[in-house]
C-alpha cells in the first residue's frame, strides 16, 4: 500500500525577512525556498518504510504556487519518492483550506496505509494542517513523533509532550504521523536520483477545481510588521565578579525581572 507525504515549501532559515511596501505580506524577491525541515524527516521515514517492504510506494504532495513548489517536489523525487502531485494554489491559504485540499487530493488517489507530515512548518509555526488533515481523512494522528515502528495493523509512535516527557501511543492504520527532529537522518539526493527526478511527471491539480468554498478559510494575515528595534545592548565592564554583581543588580533594580 501507499504512503503519502505532505510537504511545504518555506523560505530558507537563513532568510532575512523583508516586507512588501504596503505591509500586506513578505517580499519574496530573492528568497531561497527549501523543503520545510520537519518535512524532510517525513520523506526520509517514508523511503525507509518502502525499503523495509512496509509500503509499496511513496507519493509526495505539496500545495502552493506551482512555479516554485515543483522544485521542492523534485527534491523529494530525487531523494527517492515514486510519485508527486502539486496542488497549484495561492500561497496565503489558511490551515483549514489547505488541509481540505490535501485531503481531497489524497482521497482521489485511493487507499493508503500512512500519511506522513512534518510536525509544523517553520514559516507560520501554526502546527495545524497535520491534525486537521487527519480529521478530514477520518484517521487517527500522532504529532511531534521522534520514533515510530509500523506493523500490519498499527503504528507505534513515541512523541514528545510537555517538558521533555515522552509518551508512546499506538494508532490503528491508516493513520497520520507528524515527524519531529530526531526521527531519522534525512538523506541527500544522489546524482542519479536527481537525473531520474528530472524525467518524472508531476501530477497537477488546480486548487480551484477542488470545489473548496471561500468559507473554508477562517482567517488571513494582514498588517505585517517587523519586530521593533531593540535599544542597544548595555555592556558590563569590570572583572568577572563585578560583572556578575552588576548584572544581578540591573536585573533586579532596572529591568525588575528578578
Amino acid at each position, binding site marked *: 500500500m501507499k504512503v503519502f507525504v505532505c510537504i511545504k515549501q518555506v523560505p530558507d532559515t537563513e532568510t532575512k525577512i523583508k516586507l512588501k511596501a504596503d505591509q500586506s505580506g513578505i517580499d519574496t524577491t530573492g528568497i531561497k525556498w527549501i523543503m520545510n525541515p520537519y518535512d524532510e524527516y517525513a520523506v526520509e521515514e517514508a523511503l525507509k518504510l518502502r525499503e523495509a517492504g512496509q509500503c509499496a510506494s511513496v507519493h509526495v504532495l505539496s500545495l502552493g504556487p506551482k512555479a516554485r513548489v515543483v522544485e521542492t517536489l523534485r527534491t523529494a523525487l530525487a531523494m527517492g519518492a515514486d510519485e508527486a502531485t502539486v496542488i497549484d494554489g495561492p500561497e496565503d491559504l489558511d490551515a483549514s483550506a489547505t488541509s481540505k485540499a490535501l485531503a481531497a487530493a489524497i482521497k482521489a488517489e485511493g487507499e493508503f496505509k500512512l500519511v506522513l507530515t512534518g510536525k509544523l512548518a517553520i514559516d507560520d509555526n*501554526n502546527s*495545524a494542517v*497535520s491534525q486537521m488533515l487527519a*480529521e478530514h481523512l477520518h484517521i487517527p494522528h500522532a504529532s*511531534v513523533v521522534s520514533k515510530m515502528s509500523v506493523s500490519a495493523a498499527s503504528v507505534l509512535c513515541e512523541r514528545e509532550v510537555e517538558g521533555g516527557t515522552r509518551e508512546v501511543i*499506538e494508532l490503528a492504520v491508516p493513520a497520520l504521523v507528524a515527524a519531529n527532529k530526531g526521527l531519522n537522518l534525512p538523506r541527500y539526493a544522489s546524482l542519479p536520483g536527481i537525473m531520474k527526478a528530472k524525467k518524472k511527471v508531476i501530477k497537477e491539480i488546480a486548487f480551484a477545481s477542488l470545489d473548496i468554498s471561500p468559507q473554508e478559510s477562517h482567517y488571513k494575515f494582514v498588517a505585517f510588521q517587523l519586530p521593533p528595534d531593540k535599544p542597544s*545592548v548595555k555592556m558590563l565592564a569590570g572583572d568577572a565578579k563585578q560583572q556578575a554583581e552588576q548584572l544581578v543588580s540591573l536585573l533586579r533594580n532596572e529591568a525588575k525581572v528578578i
Partner: protein
Amino acid sequence: MSTIMIFAEFTNTQLKKSTLELLTAARKSNLKIQAIAVGPGAKNMLAALGQNGVEQVFVSDSEVFARYNSEVFSNAFAEVIKAQSPKFLLASSTMMARDLFPRLAAKIKAGVVSDCTELSFSGDSAKIRKPLYSGKCSAEVQFVSSGTQIILMRSNQLPIEASQKAGAASMSEIVAPKTDLKTLVKEIVKATSNKLDLTEASIIVSGGRGMKDAENFKLLNELADTLGATVGASRAVVDAGWVPHSMQVGQTGKTVAPVLYIACGISGAIQHLAGMSGSKVIVAINKDANAPIFQKATYGIVGDVFEILPLLNAEFKKILQH
C-alpha cells in the same frame, strides 16, 4: 455567538498562570465567559473560575481525562462547543493544545490560530497578532468567517489582574462519548526534571557551543535551580548530541518568550535569534565581543562562562534568599 470560552488548566488546586492571563483578557470583552475544565480535580476549580468572571463551567473530573488522548478530548469538546457555539475559544499554546485544537477545529468547522502573542478585546471583537518566520516578522490575524475562532496564546504575554467576582460558576457535566478508539496511549516516559516546558517558562538559561561539553551543562542546571528556570540549548549542541531536541531553542526548535533569557556561550545564529527574540530581557555571556547575540541582548558580558556562571549563581542566591 455571544460567549467566549476558556480552556482552563490547573495544577493541584490552582488555576495555571497562563489560564489567569486568558481570563484577564476575556474580562475586557462584553462577552459572557464560559470555561472547560477536565481531569481529576476539575470540580475544585469552580470557585476560582467564578471569582475570575466565569459564569458557566463545562466540567468533568473523570479519569478518562486524566491523560491526554486526541480522540477522547476532541470528541468530548466538540459536543460542548457545537452546542454552545462560542464566538471565541481561548487556550494557551501548549504542546497539548497545539495537538488538540486543530483537530477539534476541523471537526466543528472552526478557525484555529496558534502561538499568538498579542490579544485584546473591545466589545465582542478581538485583535490578535502572531509572530511569523519565528519572530522575524509578525502579522495581525483577521477573521473572515463567522464560525467559532480558536485562539491559542503563548504564555507570559498578557497581564494578570486580580478579580473578586461574587458567586461560583454554574456547572454543566461533560460526558466523554463512548467510541472505539483508534488511538491508545501505551506508556508515559517522564522527564527527569519537573521543570516547566521551555514554551511556558518565565526564565530560561540557555547554553551553546561555548559550554564546550555536555558535562558543563550542570553549571546551567545549577543556575536554573536557583532561578526556578528551565534550561535550553542552541541547535549546535543538540546536533552534537549533548542534550535532547526538546531543549532546542530556535527556528527548528522551540520559539520561546520568557521574561528573562540568559544565553551562555551562544554566538547567535539567525535561526537561534529568531527563536528567542520575543524574550523581554536578554542577557548574553560570551567570550567573543563580536558575537551576533550581543546585537539582540539587553545586557552583555564579554567573558568566560566558566568563570562568570558560578559567580552569578552565588550573587542570585544572595538576593533571592532575602
